[in-house]
């Protein structure tokens, strides 16, 4: 039985992305909307929403995610307001999708989706090494010299 948690580097990456997106939207608002008061309220609203997501929701969400892999199954527990526990047997996996980005070892953007009978299980924000280990444990992708074909 092994436990995995999301890569904390991903939290930083997400904060950078959200900040950049908010700055872009604010710039667009200032450019296109000629009414100062509206611009001011929208800017304040966007900054508050971004701060809530970046410093309250996301840290809680990341803290809530936990993956437990055994010899036969993988259990995912997550959720801030509503806790969700989901377990799938490796034998029921029909196919697998692995999603990553360039430099994912630094950004933590490694996702695995296991497609099983009746649904799917998404393992989000994994460390690259953890993702490889989970794939190896599940046996859902053929490995070459201990690594899956990326």
């Amino acid at each position, binding site marked *: 039985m092994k436990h995995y948690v999301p890569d904390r580097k991903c939290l930083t990456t997400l904060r950078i992305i959200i900040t950049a997106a908010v700055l872009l939207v604010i710039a667009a608002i200032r450019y296109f909307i000629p009414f100062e008061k509206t611009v001011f309220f929208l800017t304040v609203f966007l900054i508050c929403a971004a701060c809530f997501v970046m410093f309250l929701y996301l840290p809680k969400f990341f803290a809530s995610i936990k993956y437990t892999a055994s010899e036969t199954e993988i259990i995912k527990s997550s959720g801030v307001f509503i806790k969700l526990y989901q377990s799938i047997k490796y034998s029921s996996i*029909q196919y697998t999708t692995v999603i*990553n980005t360039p430099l994912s070892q630094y950004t933590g953007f490694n996702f695995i989706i296991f497609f099983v009978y009746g649904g799917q299980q998404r393992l989000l924000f994994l460390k690259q090494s953890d993702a490889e280990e989970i794939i190896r444990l599940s046996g859902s992708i053929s490995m070459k010299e201990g690594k899956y074909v*990326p």
Partner: protein
Amino acid sequence: MYREHPLKILKFSLKNIWMLIFPLIRGIYTYHFDKNWFYNWIKGAWFDIAVLGAILFFGLIRWLFSKIDFTQTELIHRDGIFFRVNTYIPFRNVSSITTEMPFYLAPFGATRFRCDTRAGIFKTVDMKLLVNQKTKEQIMLRMPNVDEEQKINGIPQPTAASILLFSVFFSSGFSGTVYLATFFFKGGDIAYDIISRSLNIITTETAKLTEKLVLKIPTAAILLGMFFIASWFLSFMVNLFRYGRFSIDCDRHCMKVIYGILDRKEYRIKNSHINYTDLRQNLIMKLFGAVAVNISCAGYGASQSRLPVLLPVKMEKNLGKNLQAIGIYSGVRNSFSAQPAGIGSYLLIPLLTASLIIPSHDWVARIFPRFAELSLFVAVMFEIPAVWFIIVKFVALLTSGVAFSGSKIIVRCSTWTRFHTVVSDQSNIVKVELEQNLLQKLSKRCALSIWFEGEEHRRFKVKAMKASEADEICRKLGYYHGKAVNS
């Protein structure tokens, strides 16, 4: 490593069509804030061309990043520029594959390829690719195929007549369309007289109105009738072209179905991944002993406009024992049948509906005597399908039940006006439900519902089963909740 067909660049480009919002915003901006907006807009046309160029360029880059690969055991598709999406489908889990070369793709040598597994809950395609001939051949080499040496002989090939009949029966509800058309054609004339008189009775003022309005009714009725007939005929022609030149081949492991006149589709289905076989009939087919054999398998007939048909209209007596290899059983008598004493479960609602139509005409005639004739006409037109429904449900009562044959279970039931004979392996059952109301409790009867594996969760319900027999069926299937209704 292989790539998708270059035509895919256009499809990828279409995904970036949202970028046209920038020229649009520029247009709106110049329109609102500059008097010479048209001049400015034209002057900046280079920007629009640049955006279109960028759309196509992104499409090209996306295409370059979309790659197809194989390992010893799986098919791999890599997609995406920034977010790299790598999908790995093991060959052993492939349930069905579809290849299609529509006439408009044929000049480019492009083939649509779809691959499906048993994963998921909706009829979604697991992998969709647009490939050239060379890539297709490479993929197909690794996919399940019919072994020519082990081919099962005697599989009935659908004839032109069976395709024609299938297209007649399954084109947008044949009987319903004919009825609706009759309603408007014949009813139009009758309604014209009745409505004219009914409206003329009210006042002389409305009589003037009647002149204007009612004269148009027969035309509208004829147009509506024509519309229904035309739409059915269109659907019939589409089905004829879709399922024409139907051929089926199979061995013990795989089935190959090819059909279509203009748009040839080839399906390869893994026999062990077929969830169940469904012999469908309507009342007319039931009376003549004809069936349409459908199957439930991930990916087969998955699109909205396709039916998962395996053998278009066939006489049930002609389905030989050699078809049992692909799960088609016929002529097996019910081991447990619906009880004729439970007639109420089948006929209560149809009888109530049919018996309330005429009285409701009486009530309307009493409250609005001027419309008596009109309401009689409407009541008669509604009474016909209601009586038809009674006959369907009566036949369902006589034929519904459950049978066992080796490891197979055969469920005979009806939904609305359709009859089903569902054949499946007992191990494919995922849920068994027993339903019993107070009256059924007293008479020791219940309704038995069975669900089979598959992306589409369909219920097959046999009403009016003897509670003790339902309990026995449950036990045979390895479920032990039957005693709750049998106590």
